[in-house]
Every structure is written in structure tokens, then in C-alpha cells.
């Protein structure tokens, strides 16, 4: 591990190359570069999750902590490790102070692994309202946000639809995968018209809203939302024209119960996955997620999301002027 205080981007590039040579590694095995935008409060969580994900997808990991944007002196501190505490790959953790934080891409661009996809993840913070204002989002091919971190997740989700570009996804969407898998599995053996759907979950929950949007996009009907306090979605059910109900809910912390008409209830393994595992699922798919776009369209009524340009153009934004 190498630590550089008050350094420059050039020195970081050199130090990374040196560390890589010393470890005997080459870049050939890298599948992607993962850029994590974090804050001092979330950097520990970011490191933990990113090292889990890096074990499944060999990535060069670049964690950027931007601090004291209004501070006077721009400054860069960096820590470089290869096959060390941050998983099997190459990792650079950088802290950027002062005005440098607004130009993070100037340090990050030369550190990107050659010609492999770049994924940017905003960790533990509400995503920027307009991703084009964050240069770290502009340089990415895939962008991962997390609306559940926002004070108003539903509004954040709607903003994601307004600001959508192909290649965006959200970790609240990843949370829907096990639910969607169990529901789709239940419908493999049912061939009946659907007349309604209900989702039971806490108020203002992004995952519940996305599940509703997905059901709407697939079934063409708006699910009812029933409020019940809890850590997340509690139950999803679909009503059939024949009067039966297909229902997926929690049995206990590690088990879901799947109910289908005319068949005995089934218990299936299901659990709330830690951030690292969800991030790893995101990194498995580097192409635009069409069902996610269709779901956002269903939630907001916007259209043409998949046809938008996947490239964003940087918009200059100075928080010092707006605040």
C-alpha cells in the first residue's frame, strides 16, 4: 500500500503503475473501472461494498471523496493498493479538497483502465439531481444511483426518470430483483388474465414504487399501494380474473412465502442482500437496462426514455455560487 499526501494526479498514475509492476500484475484481466463518488461519512461503506463487488468482477477501483469544496487550497491525498485490503484488484482512494473537488475528472480520467467500461456509483448519498453536472457521471458508461438515500425517495426516483439516460440504474431497482424473480416464477405455471395488483410496504419507499411501476409496465394496470410501516416491501400480490391471488411475502428474515391458487404455499429462500452483493449484480449487466427504463416510464408517464442519448454533456455547476 502506498500513501501520497498533497500529491498530483501524475504522481498517482506513476504510483499505481509502480504498485502494479511490483505485484506482478497486468491490466489484461480487468473487466471495468469502478468509480465511486463518496463522502467522508460513507467512504467506509463504499470501500466495503466495492471490495465485495470487485471480487466478482475484476475492476480497477477508484474511490473519490470530495471535501471542503469552499476551502481555499486545492489539495489531493491518495492511497494506492493492489490486491490488498480493497479486494483482489487495483484500488485508489483519493481525497480531493477545495476547488479541485469540482474538477475530479482531471485526476480520474488518466487513471481509467484502457478501453474497458467505466461505472460510476454514488455511494450512500442522494444522487445528484442532474447527473450531467457531475463530471464523474459524465465520463461513465454505466451509472448507479441510490434513491433510497434521498430524504424523499419517490421524488428522487421521478427526478431519475426526468434525468434518465440509457445506462442509468438505481440500487432500489436491484432490490426488486428477488421479488420480481419469485413473481415471474409463480406466473410460469399460471395462464390466467390478471385484474389487479397490490403492494404492501412503508410509505415513500422507492423499491415499492419501482415494483408497482414494473407491474404496471408488464400487466398494464396500476397496482394499489397499501401502507404498512417496516424496513421495506412486505408483500406483493396479483389478483387473477378467476378470483385467485398470486402472492409473494416474507415468511421470516431469510424466507419468502409464495402463494398460488390451487397449489400449496411454498417457502423460498430470500433475504435482504448487503450493498456489496447488490452492486455486484449491477456490474454483471453493463448494457442499458430496458425493463428499468420501462418501469420509470410507467411511474412518471414520461415516454421515449430508451431512445435518449446514452452520452451526457457536462454542464458546469458551481455549488459555491448557488448556495
Amino acid at each position, binding site marked *: 500500500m502506498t500513501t501520497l499526501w498533497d500529491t498530483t494526479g501524475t504522481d498517482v498514475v506513476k504510483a499505481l503503475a509502480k504498485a502494479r509492476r511490483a505485484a506482478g500484475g497486468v491490466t489484461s484481466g480487468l473487466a471495468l473501472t469502478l468509480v465511486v463518488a463518496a463522502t467522508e461519512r460513507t467512504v467506509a461503506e463504499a470501500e466495503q461494498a466495492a471490495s465485495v463487488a470487485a471480487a466478482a468482477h*475484476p475492476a480497477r477501483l477508484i474511490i473519490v471523496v470530495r471535501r471542503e469544496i469552499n476551502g481555499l487550497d486545492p489539495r489531493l491525498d491518495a492511497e494506492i493498493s493492489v490486491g490488498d485490503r480493497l479486494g483482489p484488484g487495483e484500488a485508489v482512494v483519493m481525497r480531493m479538497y477545495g476547488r479541485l473537488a469540482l474538477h475530479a475528472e482531471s485526476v480520474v480520467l488518466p487513471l481509467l483502465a484502457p478501453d474497458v467500461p467505466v461505472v460510476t456509483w454514488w455511494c450512500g448519498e442522494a444522487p445528484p439531481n442532474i447527473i450531467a453536472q457531475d463530471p464523474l457521471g459524465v465520463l461513465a458508461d454505466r451509472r448507479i444511483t441510490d434513491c433510497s438515500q434521498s430524504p424523499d425517495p419517490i421524488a428522487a426516483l421521478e427526478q431519475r426518470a426526468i434525468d434518465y439516460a440509457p445506462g442509468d440504474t438505481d440500487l432500489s431497482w436491484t432490490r426488486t430483483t428477488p421479488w420480481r424473480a419469485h413473481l415471474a416464477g409463480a406466473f410460469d405455471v399460471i*395462464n390466467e388474465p390478471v385484474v389487479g395488483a397490490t403492494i404492501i410496504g412503508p410509505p415513500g419507499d422507492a423499491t415499492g414504487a419501482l415494483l408497482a411501476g414494473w407491474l404496471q409496465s408488464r*400487466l398494464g394496470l396500476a397496482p394499489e399501494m397499501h401502507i404498512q410501516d417496516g424496513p421495506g416491501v412486505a408483500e406483493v400480490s396479483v389478483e387473477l380474473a378467476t378470483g385467485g391471488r398470486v402472492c409473494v411475502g416474507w415468511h421470516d428474515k*431469510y424466507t419468502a412465502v409464495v402463494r398460488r391458487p390451487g397449489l400449496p404455499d411454498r417457502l423460498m*429462500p430470500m433475504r435482504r442482500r448487503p450493498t456489496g452483493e447488490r452492486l455486484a449484480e449491477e456490474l454483471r449487466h453493463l448494457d442499458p437496462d430496458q425493463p428499468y427504463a420501462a418501469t420509470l416510464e410507467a411511474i412518471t408517464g414520461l415516454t421515449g426514455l430508451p431512445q435518449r442519448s446514452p452520452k451526457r454533456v457536462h454542464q458546469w455547476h458551481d455549488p459555491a455560487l448557488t448556495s
Partner: protein
Amino acid sequence: MSTDKPGQQINPLRDPDDRRLPRVPEPCALVIFGATGDLSRRKLIPAIYDLANRGLLPPGFVTIGFARDRGNFVDIAKQAAQEGARTTWREEVWERLAEGVHFVAGTFEDDAAFDELAATLTRLNESHGIAGNAAFYLAIPPVTFPLVLKQMERTKMADNEAAGGWRRVVVEKPFGTDLPSSQALNTLVDDVFTPNDVFRIDHYLGKETVQNLLALRFANTFFEPVWNGLYVDSVQITMAEDVGIGTRAGFYDKTGAARDVLQNHLLQLLALTAMEEPVSFDAESIRTEKLKVLRAIALPENPATHAVRGQYQQGWCAGERVLGYHDEQGVAKDSTTETYAAVQLNVETRRWAGVPFYLRTGKRLPRRVTEIAVLFREAPHLPFSNTDTEQLGQNQLVIRVQPDEGITLKFGSKVPGSQMEVRDVAMDFLYGESFTEKSPEAYERLVLDVLLGDSTLFPHAEEVAASWRVIDPLQEFWSQVPPALYRAGEWGPAAADGMLAQDGRTWRRP
């Protein structure tokens, strides 16, 4: 409102674009004959657990064990799953799976036991909603197949219509011992099950690299133009094992390396390497292309010079003294069964005319390795002096099937320094490096495909027959020739090296 169109099974929640949702089979049962045996405990049960852990099994999935000795099957299965699982152990996953584990005790002659099995399956229709769907895995010696199949015919367990769902059967190699016996076996299985419901397992085809061979050839631009006799000098396909025959003497002494490995694994790998591009990536199209290659295989004109078989003698393997084949328990002192086989085959097509395919397999070789090496011709002209390129060999593309699944490209490169000197270097792609996610075990993939009814990765009866047509004349020739001897821990008999040397080639050290 989008609802199901009448008469069509369309799941409104499934979307081909939605690749996060896993392919999950319909509710069904897997019946394992020989459930307490080696294959079941080492491979099948762990594969089932891993599938469950990845969320790839349907709700109400049922495992039924059928074996003679009762014991406590759930405990045996749990221990097997715990020892063999590739994914992390989660008690709750096992508990859910164990709810669907049943056991029927009996011998294959026992009518009552099969009646009970049939009754259990009918009962599960109600209680687990499997809708008559069941796959029967014959993890038992081939001599017992006729008995079991007759029992299934008698109880109508193999009958799709009587069951109201699909009924499939999974057969392990060896598929017979020669062409007539394999055809007899096929007729027997096809009589009881419909041909499309028969799945023959060749677990090599479940390996990631083997599937990747097709991706490599047909998804890329720059391999296909050189994938022919104009650029390829020869192909070497190797499957080496460091172990001896262990406790399988009874089976192995009757079988030998050619029938055990050459007939199935190596010829399948050859077919995938040499086949033309399939019109699409479905089972039917791939099978068509593989069959064309298998039927185009020609044996060497003179097998005396281009087919070698061998038998290991005592020696040292990985630092341990090991017995010779004759001294293994259960092997006759005068056994002429081969433990090593090497042969040159030709594929008589425009693409491969004049390119020898060297296949070899053996036991007690220095290391366990399976690979396909495509060796390219030397450059027609080298503008360097002879001394500059002394260290330059043939360009090679090596597909490593196991261990360290991956691909190596070997080419010449200048040695840094003031002199012009060209030497071979290797460029490596390692599966474990670019996709560290634990790739599924071959059996996991294949069991899932059986339950999904996808036969892409399973050799068809016609492929098996075509393979026997290659091996039978070879066996006939070999039956007249005593095996050449080699010391355990060597790369096979000297005659195998001689076989390549007469063509001016050498075996690649894998």
C-alpha cells in the same frame, strides 16, 4: 390491459430484455437412481444445492432418492451438499430444499418399490404441484439400465401423457461399449422414453470454456479467418489425469482409455473445434454441425504408425510411489487394457484437409489437465537471420478446459535489448481473473438444462453412433497389439512421441 392470449402460454412478467430474472424450470421432481452412490453424493446433490442457493429451482422442487440401502437419506444428502457445494452454505436454503427430499428404498427387481415410486410421484402432483413433471437420473451402472427402464415402462412412469407433464431421463456415459451395444441401448431408452426426452451427459460440455469455444470462434472476427488448413498446422487435444484407476478396476479393465475418454470427451471437443458455424445457437443447429464433423472423421491409413495405446507401470507420481496398472487391485496380471491412447485423426472437409488432429488421453500422467491446442503454421518467410529466431516456435491458441479455465495465445516477441532476437511469449486470459464470480460446476449447468428441457449441451444418439464408428475400427486394430508401456508420472509411452516425430512435430507440454 395486457392479458394472456388464449391457448398460448405467455408469462406476462417475463421479458427477454430482463436478464436479471433467472431461467427457472417449471415445478418438477428429480428422481435419482443410485442416490447414495458416488456420483450422486459428489456431484448431483451438491449441484442441486448450488442451484437452490442461486435461486434457480422452482417453488415446490422435489428430489427423490432411490437406492437399496435406506440409511437416513436426508442426512446423507445434507452431508454431501455441505461437502460438495461451491456456493456458501446457508442453512435456510438447505431446509427449504430438504422439505422436498423423499426417499424410496428398493432394488431394481423389486416391483413394489417402483410402484411406491410411481405412487409418490402421483402424490407429489397434489402436494407440491409438480404437474407430472419429472426427470429420472440414472446414476447407476449401465448393466442395470434395462432393468430400471423396464420397471419404468411397466409403471408408466416414463409416459408423458399418462403423467400429464414431461418425463425425461438422464443417462451417464459410457453409452455402450461399441456401435452395436450403443445402438441396442439407444433403442431400449428410446422405446421407453421419446428420443427428445433422453439427455446424455457428457460433463465436459457443461464447462464454461467449452461453451466459450463457440463464443470465441463465432462471436469474434479475427479467429475465424485463420481457423482452417491454410493457417492451422495441426490440432492437439489432450485430456491427462494424474490419478490411477482407483477403485474402478472392475469397470475400467473392461473399458480402457479409448472407450472411457476418447470416444466421448475427446471426440466432442474435436467436433466443437472443427465444426462449421451453426445457423443459430439452438440444439438442433449445433447438433447438425457437430454430426457433419464426426461423420467426416477419417482414421489414419496406417494405424500401426498413427495410433498408440499404452499402459502405465509402477513409478513416481507427484512425489509418491504408485503401483503399475497390473498391480492395481482387481486387475489381472496379464490385462492388456490400455490406460493411455493417442491417435491421429483427419477431418475430411475442405476446411481441414491435411490438418492432423492429434488426440491423447491417459492416466498417471504428470498432471491433471485438459486442453485444446491449435498450432498455426510457421510464417512463410522470416526476414530475420536464423539465429534471431531460434527460440521462435509455432503460434498457438490454447483453450484450457481444466484446471485454470481460460485461453492462452502464444506468439513471438522481440527480447528487449540491442540485438534482434525473437522469442515466444504467452498472453493469458484466465476465467478466474476476468469473471471471478464462481462459475457454475458443469453438473449444475447440465442438471438445470435437463429441467429446462434444453438439449444444446447434450450429445445426441446420432453423435454417439458416429463416435463409435470412429472408435470401433481402432479398437479392432488395437486388440491385436499389446499396449506400449510407460512409467507412471511420464507423458505417455515413447511410441506416442515417435508418432508425432515421424511427421516432424512434437507434443505440446500442457
